[in-house]
Every structure is written in structure tokens, then in C-alpha cells.
């Protein structure tokens, strides 16, 4: 395997051709990531991902990155400002701990998509599997298909929108994240309840659906949130501590 040195990629940049293409068939992962992390913008195409892990992670500027194919673990993790688009499916931990920007996946996502994300928008056009949005802290996640069990576990803030069905124990031990599901919910987790859909929620939902390219009527969704019985300090229990 030959390595494409960062300097060579940077020389290509000077030509100013957009988008620039990086072929993972002959590029080392660290060269890819350090090159992308050094950019202030531009359009990038990553070819031959072949299920590799940690592609396009730690980006810190408004790049437009297209990954042509399917990826492994932790694709586009810790993203800030960049817009990453994956044409295939992604492995576990896509867009983990995203700060801002957006990550769009045309196919399916494996476990814990968008886990611990602080901001930005994650769109899964297919299905997401278990633990989607676990411990989310402000990220918005829109899944066009279904999500698996234990999704939004301990989710603290942000919005999880699901056009399909949700698996077992949705929103277990939930804090203040909002969950919107159009299909069936197999079961709700501890302290997660259905809540009234008020106009402000319909407004949030309509905006998210629009930004996620989802053709769905906000009125068809149900909203779920925290019953706030599990995590609040209750003054009546002061003597128990």
C-alpha cells in the first residue's frame, strides 16, 4: 500500500479543483483525517471507503464532504461545522459527539448513531439500530426509517425524530430531549411518557422534517418526553439522603 503524503494532497489543493477526491484505496486513514482537519472549507469526495473506521472525524470547518460507499465505526465523529454525506450505510457510532454541522446517511446506521451529540443535525435516510441518540446532549436526529431498542437512553436535550417505528424501551431514564415518533413505539423506557403536542412542538418538528428532506406531516407524530420523576431531587425525600 502506498501512502499519499499530506503535502501531496495539499499541492493538489492549490490547483483549486472542486471537489477534490481522495481515494482510500491508496490513502492512509490518518492522512485523510489530518488533511481534512487542516481545511477551512471546500468540497471533498472520499472514494472506496470499504467499511473503514473513523472516516472524516474531528472536522472543524464548513467543509462539504461526500463519502461514496459504506463506512465502519465512528464515521464523522466529533464533527464541527462540516457537512458530511455518506452515500451508503454506516457502522456503529456515526456522528458520535457531534458539535455542529450535519451528517447525512443515505443507507442504514448501526448502533448508537449520534450518541452524546451536542449539536448539529444527523439524518439517517434508512433505519438506525439500537441505542440511537443515546445520551444526546443537544443534537437533532431525524431517522426516515425505524430505530432499535434503548434509543434516546438518558437523552439530555435535542430532538429525535423517527418517521418509522421505535423499538423497546424508548427514552429510558430520559432528561429533557424531545422524541417525536410517527409509527409505533414497541415500549417506553422508565420515566418516558407520551406528552401533548403543542403548537411550538409542531413548529420544531416541521422545521426538522424540512431540513432533513423528509416528506411527512408533523400532525401524524406523537411526542414523548420525560415524566421527570426519576431524575429530579424531590424535597419530600430529603430525609433519605
Amino acid at each position, binding site marked *: 500500500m502506498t501512502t499519499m503524503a499530506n503535502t501531496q494532497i495539499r499541492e493538489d489543493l492549490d490547483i483549486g479543483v472542486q471537489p477534490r477526491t481522495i481515494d482510500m484505496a491508496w490513502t492512509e486513514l490518518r492522512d485523510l483525517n489530518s488533511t481534512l482537519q487542516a481545511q477551512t472549507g471546500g468540497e471533498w469526495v472520499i472514494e472506496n471507503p*470499504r467499511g473503514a473506521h473513523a472516516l472524516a472525524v474531528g472536522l472543524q470547518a464548513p467543509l462539504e464532504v461526500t463519502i461514496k460507499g459504506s463506512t465502519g465505526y465512528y464515521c464523522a465523529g466529533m464533527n464541527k461545522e462540516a457537512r458530511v454525506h455518506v452515500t451508503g*450505510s454506516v*457502522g456503529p457510532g456515526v456522528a458520535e459527539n457531534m458539535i455542529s454541522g450535519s451528517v447525512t446517511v443515505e443507507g442504514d446506521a448501526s*448502533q448508537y448513531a449520534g450518541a452524546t451529540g451536542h449539536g448539529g443535525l444527523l439524518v439517517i435516510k434508512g*433505519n438506525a439500530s439500537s441505542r440511537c441518540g443515546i445520551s444526546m446532549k443537544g443534537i437533532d436526529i431525524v431517522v426516515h426509517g425505524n430505530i*432499535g*431498542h434503548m434509543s434516546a437512553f438518558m437523552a439530555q436535550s435535542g430532538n429525535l425524530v423517527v418517521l418509522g417505528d421505535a423499538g423497546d424501551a424508548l427514552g429510558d431514564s430520559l432528561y429533557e430531549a424531545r422524541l417525536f415518533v410517527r409509527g409505533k413505539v414497541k415500549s417506553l423506557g422508565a420515566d418516558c411518557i407520551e406528552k401533548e403536542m403543542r403548537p411550538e412542538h409542531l413548529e420544531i418538528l416541521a422545521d426538522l422534517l424540512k431540513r432533513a428532506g423528509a416528506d411527512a406531516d408533523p400532525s401524524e407524530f406523537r411526542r414523548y418526553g420525560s415524566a421527570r420523576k426519576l431524575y429530579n431531587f424531590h424535597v419530600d425525600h430529603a430525609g433519605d439522603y
Partner: protein
Amino acid sequence: MCGIVGLFLKKDDLRPQLGDLLTDMLISMTDRGPDSAGIAIYGDDAQGLKMTIQSDTPDETFAGLEDSLKALLGAPVQVRVVDTHAVLTLPEGSEPEVRAYMAEKGIRIMGAGQSMEIFKEVGLPKDVAARFGIRQMGGSHGIGHTRMATESAVTTLGAHPFSTDGDQCLVHNGSLSNHNRVRRELARKGFVPQTQNDTEVAACYISSRLAEGANLGEALEGTLDDLDGFFTFVVGTRNGFGVVRDPIACKPAVMAETDSYVAFGSEYRAFANLPGIEDARIWEPEPATVYFWER
């Protein structure tokens, strides 16, 4: 961790390439299991019984074995030595006698059946595959495993796949917590695991259920009720290929299907070299859901 790969051909066109494709899949899972590797491959049916045996001292152990077995059975026997393993072709009905002979000589039996051969050793997947010439092997389906040991020692017998009955094999990613109790129950039914390994108990469990008349789907369904712990199992039989994940499903799994094959991988990387993968249907098997194919 541990890595699992599996390939079940629905058509015969890829048969000559089965070993080649499986080798690439196995090597791609090296990061998940660099301790040891193994593969079960279902090739052409033998005239009689196929048995794969293993010895740490193959030069001494396998020298003269053919003559000894011929004398023991009074019938023609073939011995094909492949590194530390040998594949025997034996007359039908000779299995109990041969098993007793192997036990007496301290020779390990990897598996037996009509079409299955099993090769497993300690070492990196690429080295294990090269030692046994897996790339050159053809067949209808095969299952491979790369091991990162957790529950028992890094030894040849601790490597996967495990075979506990004719043409059956099982590989596992995870760890079982109730294997000692299940081991005792299985022993009462006559299915006695050879090792202290948790995975072998699961293989014995499947064998016992199949022996009781369950089909592959029913046997796999039973693991969800009777086995406790983390597991993704991939199971092979002479004409079948099955997958099941525990209800928590934290061990990764991805599947791909085309008109030509069904493939299993712990990660998508395992599929990168498969023909037509760009147009395959790719999905993650659901928790607590049995998938199986038979031809």
C-alpha cells in the same frame, strides 16, 4: 471482541471461489481477533465419512496413520495432511471406532461429517489461512472466526468454529454466563463438551436440539430462551446457514444478500471484496431474531 464471517452460496457459480472470498473476509477481521482463527468449509461430499483431526506434532502423529486405520477398519482409508490438520476419508459407520482410536492416541478431532472440514489454529488470521491453503478451497458455504479470547485459554481447541455433531459448526462473538449449568444439563443428554469453553456449550446445545428433531431455526430460537449472556452466533449445517443475536445485541453484525449469496460479517469491512456488493441488500440483523437459509 472477536470477528465472525460467513458466506452461504445460493448458486453454484461462486463455488470454486468460496475459500478465496472467505479468506479475504477472515483477514479483514484481524483487528477484532488476532489470537487465533478458524474456518469451517462445506466442500464436496465424501464417499463415506470426512473427519478433520489435529495434532501439535503432525509429522510423528500422521506418519503411518493411514496404514494403522486401514488395519483397524479393514477397509480403504484416505489421509490428506494439511499442516497440523489431516482430513480423513473413512468408511461409513466407522466413526465410533475411529473416535475411540483418536482418543487413545491423544489426537484431537476438529469435526466430522460428509462435507465439512474444519481448520483452526493459534495465530494471525492471514497466517492460519495460508497454512491451511483456505484460498484454494471450493465449496457451498463456510464460516470463519477470528478470536480475541475472554473465557478460556488461547489454544487450538479454544479457537472457533466448534463442531459437536456431524457437519455442524458454530462460531460466537460474546460470552455466555450460564454455560456451566447448561453444560451439566447437556451432559445428562449425552452431549459432552470437550473443553471448558463457553462457546462449545452453545454448539452442543444446538446439536442436542437438532438431534431431538428441531430444525435449524427452532434450535437457534432455543438459544434465546436457554442461553444467557452476550452472543452473536453463526451456525452451519450440511445444507444450512443460520444467524441469531441476543436481545441486547451489542455485538456487531451486518448481513448482505444478493441473488448469488448470503454473507455475514461482524463489520461491513468483511464484505468489501465480495462480488456485486455494491448492489447487495445490506442490513443489520435484528436482536433476538433468527435468520436461516437452507438449500
